[in-house]
Structure formats: structure tokens, C-alpha cells
């Protein structure tokens, strides 16, 4: 093994570079929080998933208990099929319900799990029956305008028949 007078400096340089990579991975990327926990898969069907994306959080009582694994379209029921990976440590009753919620006014969407009351727990491959779709702003506005229009429609003849 030949050695040279630069060895110590090169060692320093490599150490600094390694420390920088470690800093990026741990402090900026937060590698430690990556979960290598074992998970089990359940699926749920939604009429409308809004802006939900794969890798979105699954929360129960505000705590992250899993991630969205995949989203696909089921052409038998014309619904969205969402596969969830839940941590093995967190078990939920079979009749739990899933909602698509939004973090903040314009935040990202996530799935909220509400535990049910049944004795048996969800196991791998089960389907969550009760689901609630995402709130789509356009539909809300449409409903609002419709109800306003029907109010106006019922109010107009009443005022017209008065004299």
C-alpha cells in the first residue's frame, strides 16, 4: 500500500462529503422517520377521491397509521379503488369507516379512519365498507346555486301573486 502526503487531506475531504450526505439524508430528508414497519393491506372504494394521491397519509385521530399504496379505477362499479397500507401495530375494527379529508383549506388530502365497534379487526385483504368521498368544491357550489335558484323560484310567484 503506497501512501502519499495527501492521504490525510483526502480523508478529510471524503469525511466532509460523507457528513454532508448524512446531513442531507437525516436532517433534510428525515431518513430516521422512514417506516420499515410491517404493514397489512386493506382496500376501500370511493365514489370520488378528489385530489388524493398515492403515498398520502392515512390518519386516525390525527395520527399517521399508514399510507395510500395505490389508486385505481374499478370499471365494474365505476368507483375508485384505493389500497391502503396500515401499520401492523395499529388494528381497527372491521366496521371502521374511511373518509377523504383535507388538511387545512388548501392543503393536501388524506384518508381519515374512524374506528367502528365490531369485535373482529380488519385483516390483510379486507375491504372497508363505509366510505365517504372527497368534498369537491364545484359540486358544493352547484348545490348552493341550485338551492338558491329554487328559493328564488318559490319566492318569485309568492311576491307576484300579492297585488
Amino acid at each position, binding site marked *: 500500500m503506497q501512501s502519499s502526503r495527501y492521504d490525510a487531506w483526502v480523508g478529510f475531504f471524503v469525511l466532509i*462529503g460523507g457528513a454532508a450526505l448524512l446531513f442531507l439524508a437525516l436532517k433534510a430528508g428525515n431518513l430516521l422517520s422512514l417506516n420499515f414497519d410491517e404493514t397489512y393491506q386493506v382496500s376501500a372504494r370511493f365514489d370520488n377521491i378528489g385530489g388524493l394521491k398515492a403515498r398520502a397519509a392515512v390518519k386516525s385521530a390525527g395520527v399517521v397509521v399508514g399510507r395510500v399504496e395505490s389508486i385505481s379505477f374499478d370499471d365494474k362499479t365505476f368507483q375508485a379503488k384505493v389500497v391502503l397500507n396500515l401499520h401492523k401495530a395499529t388494528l381497527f375494527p372491521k366496521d371502521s369507516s374511511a373518509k377523504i379529508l383535507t388538511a387545512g383549506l388548501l392543503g393536501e388530502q388524506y384518508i381519515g379512519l374512524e374506528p367502528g365497534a365490531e369485535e373482529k379487526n380488519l385483516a390483510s385483504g379486507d375491504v372497508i365498507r363505509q366510505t365517504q368521498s372527497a368534498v369537491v368544491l364545484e359540486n358544493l357550489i352547484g348545490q348552493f346555486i341550485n338551492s338558491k335558484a329554487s328559493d328564488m323560484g318559490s319566492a318569485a310567484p309568492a311576491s307576484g301573486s300579492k297585488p
Partner: protein
Amino acid sequence: MMALATRIGAGLRSTLVDVGAAARLFGSLLARSPKALARFVLVREQVFYLGNRSLSIIGVSGLFVGFVLALQGYYTLQRYGSAEAVGLLVALSLVRELGPVVAALLFAGRAGTSLTAEIGLMKAGEQLTAMEMMAVDPVQRVLAPRFWGGFIAMPLLAAVFSAVGIIGGWLVAVPLIGIDAGAFWSQMQGGVDVFADVGNGVIKSLVFGVTVTFVALLQGYTCSPTPEGVSAATTRTVVLASLAVLALDFMLTALMFSI
């Protein structure tokens, strides 16, 4: 009309010859690498010249890029009431793009030019020919250690650039502007993915390291052995390496982050 066609034809042919020569040099560089890497002391020396000596310019530039990113990002983000996201903005733009790209551009200017000038002068002084006369392969003895030195140094430099830049962003955002430190880091950690963002940044810097080092070596090795030739080759190194890095960056970004 005929003259124009002739010019185009001659230009295309000489370009093809150049590309072929470059590919052959790259091939023989890789073929001789095992033997060059066996004498690792030469590679270590090159890591010192290319890496350690570039550390100061990379560190200082990274710090100032981080400062500016945090300041500019803050002015825009606070309009939307999300000034805390400045940490995420600084980290993502550094790790994904600015770290590898700016470090590669600085590396081309700081280390690439010195490689070209060194090898060009060796060629002008007929040292490379003398080596061949003594049955020492100049590709194995001179080019390969420099190539691997650049290959090792570049990703480390890019990582240093990004890390120092994030610290610079923190310095401006937290002590100077007064953003909450916890929100700064948690927003960053929530949005930066270790493999998708940091990992792809490292892959980019590896590609740029190969590109810049090879362009510099090629220009030095094929320059005309005169003072003018060496100076023209040094200029070409900076121009070609920078353009190649920027074009490759666009392609890599389109491949990596297209979803």
C-alpha cells in the same frame, strides 16, 4: 449551392470523426481503469487536487446560494402566509437542482480547466509521447486516475454544496428573519424524500462528474500542442462542459421527476 453542400458534408464528417475519437477514448479509459484503480494512490492524489482544492469555492458559493434562496423565497412565500415553507423551498431546490448543477459548473471552472491545461501542456511538452516511448500508457497513467478522481470528488462536492446551502438558508430564515426553527425543519423533512430527492440528486452529480471530467480530459488530450491550442482547449472545456451539464440536467430532470 454545391459549395454549401460540400461545407455541410465536411462539417458533418469531421464532427462524426470527433465523436468517434471521443467514444474510443472513453472506451479505452474504461478498459484501462482496473489497472489504474489498482494504483489507488494516484487516484487519491487527484481527489486531493480536484476535490480538496475546490472545497472552498464550493462551500462559499453554497452558503451564498442558500442565503439568496431563503431571502427570495421568503418574500414570495410570505404573501401567501406560508413563510415556514421556506425551508422546504431551499432544501428541494438545492438537493434536486442547484446543488448538482451549480457544483458541476463551478467544478468545470475550477477543476476542469486545470485538468485541460495540465494535460494540454504535457502534450505540448511531448511528455505524453515520451511516456509512450517508455512503454507507459498515458491513458492509464495520466487520464484514468484523473477521471476517477473527478468521479469520486464531484458527488461529494455537490453534497457539500447542498448541505452548506441548507445551513445558509437556515441562517437567513431562522436567526435573521425569525421563522420558527421547528416549522422550518419539519416542513423540510415533510417534503424532502430521501430516495426520490436526495438520491436522484446524487445520481445527477455522478453523471455530471463523469461529463465534466471526461470533457476536460478529452479537450486536453486532443488539443493542438501549441500555446494557442492549449488556451483554446481550456476555453472549450468550460463552454462544452457547462452546456453539457445544463442539457443533461434537463434530460435527467425530465426522466426523474416527470410523474
